[in-house]
């Protein structure tokens, strides 16, 4: 998980389930009993959330690690 994420352009994707556009929206996330609300890409129509590589290996990984050390 420590390697540098591949740089990808944002908003390349459309929802494959309903064809909806993706926009930043409030997303609820949880780890080790801690809940958060964060702004992430999600389908405006069906709510499917996209976690990008940058986010998963960047900020999200950092938060996971610090919660694990609490």
């Amino acid at each position, binding site marked *: 998980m420590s390697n540098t994420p591949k740089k990808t352009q944002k908003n390349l994707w459309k929802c494959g389930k309903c064809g909806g556009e993706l926009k930043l929206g409030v997303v609820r996330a949880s780890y080790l009993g801690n809940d958060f609300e964060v702004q992430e890409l999600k389908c405006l129509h069906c709510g*499917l959330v996209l976690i990008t590589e940058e986010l998963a290996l960047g900020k999200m990984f950092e938060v996971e690690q610090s919660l694990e050390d609490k």
Partner: protein
Amino acid sequence: MADGRKAAVSIDRYLQGVSLTAARIGEGTYETKLYVNTKGFTSLPVVTMSHKTEGYTPEEAVQEAGRCLNCQCLECVKGCKYMEHYGSYPKNYLRQIYNNDTIVMGIRHGNKMINSCSLCGQCGVICPQGLDLGQACKATRESMVTKGKMPPSAHDFALRDMAFNNSEEFAMTRHQPGHNSSKYVFFPGCQLSASSPEHVEKVYAYLTEKLPGGVGLMMRCCGAPADWAGNQDLFQNSLKVLMAEWERLGKPQIIVACSTCHSMFKDRFPEVISLWELMDHLELPVRGDNISSASTSGPESRTAGKVAVQDACTTRHEPVIHDAVRRILTKLGYEVEELPYNKALTKCCGFGGLTSFVNPELGKEIVEDRISESTTDYVAYCAMCRDNFAAQGKRTFHLLDLIFGTNLEEAANRPKVGISYRQENRAKLKRKLLHSLWKEAPQEKEGAYRSIKLLLNEKVEQIMEDRLILREDIQQVIELAERTGIKFINPDNGHSLAHFRPVKVTYWVEYNPQEQGIEVLNVYSHRMEILEDGHE
């Protein structure tokens, strides 16, 4: 000088108005427990004062001070990349470990450090006082697990791999075909079975030919990953199943090919014997190649059969194994080169204690350090040592490569077997042995995802290796996405991006279906859970 210091302390105490006598231990000269290696230093005479009544001149004083060795007790740090990596020494590490374990609120900054030690015991052997930092790290890991404070990501992959090895996919116990009792049982271990399953087949054939009374076969995990991870419940439960299987075979003598298995079993099972000790006493198998393929520094400077021995760290206190390995090599015609840290002082390859899972950067440093100690080809008798060295470009044989002696040039350069293929090799080995030796029909594996053919290039395979993502994880993501339509589409290139969370990790795969299979373009994962409806 000591008197001067004593006087200064008295003056200071007097001026501060505190006791002149309380707790004045360790003043003046006394015998220290610290150790300084003076090898390489030559004794210099005391600088004589040119004018005795006036004391040293500035030049003389500098010269006299230059005799000081600036003593530091750091022998263990010099031998250990882990201790060097964290930039301090055991006394400080012990304090950090204690503080980390006793903290009530706040961040446990020492978690990664505690989980990065390979628990190999080298420091305990180097230290004249026998201080083994690994013992403190292991006890603390156990304490962290008990308190529920072990970071879940630290050993997750290794423990899931252990679960695979104890599952029906790999685990099996049988008497030798045609026998209903076993005098011996061969326990090849999961890493040899993963790295070179063909050696397991050859060794088993050899043992059944050489040993009378039936040689059973037991394939599963010895439990070391759980022990190293500080998870004693898991370790004891794994051991309990193993013990029951061994009793079912009639308590045969266990022959182990893996040094770690040996270290786990030796105090728990009677008469455990290492394959090397046994082979040293038996007639060696006939080899399929000659010995001249080992080289000292690459193909252009070839000499006849010299190899440098990498002793497995889990044999540190097993001189019988060290000697057996060297005798086997001598019998095979090899000249043995000893590495600077060998036998009881040997260095870990970074697998021990699960270091390379917790701290891959340190794992690489450890290997880099070890493989730079000699340009001679290495020979290891631990499959993980061999694979870890090979992964960083060091020509390394497994001792079984030399014993069976086929395709030595290929064996020295054989790349490390990646994480997905390790599991696949184990599963295939079990199916092959059951079919060829026990004439049992292999069990069909469940799961529609297994039939998905993946097209993986080297770059993606490396990403999977670094991020500990298995082929099976990718297949499951794609199967779910294609079955349900839950995925994202890139309208420009038609790529799909989908996710799946089997248990505690969400895997994401970018892929593109082709005629020959599914081309995988990228994979990544996270542990955090998304709680939106319709997402997970």
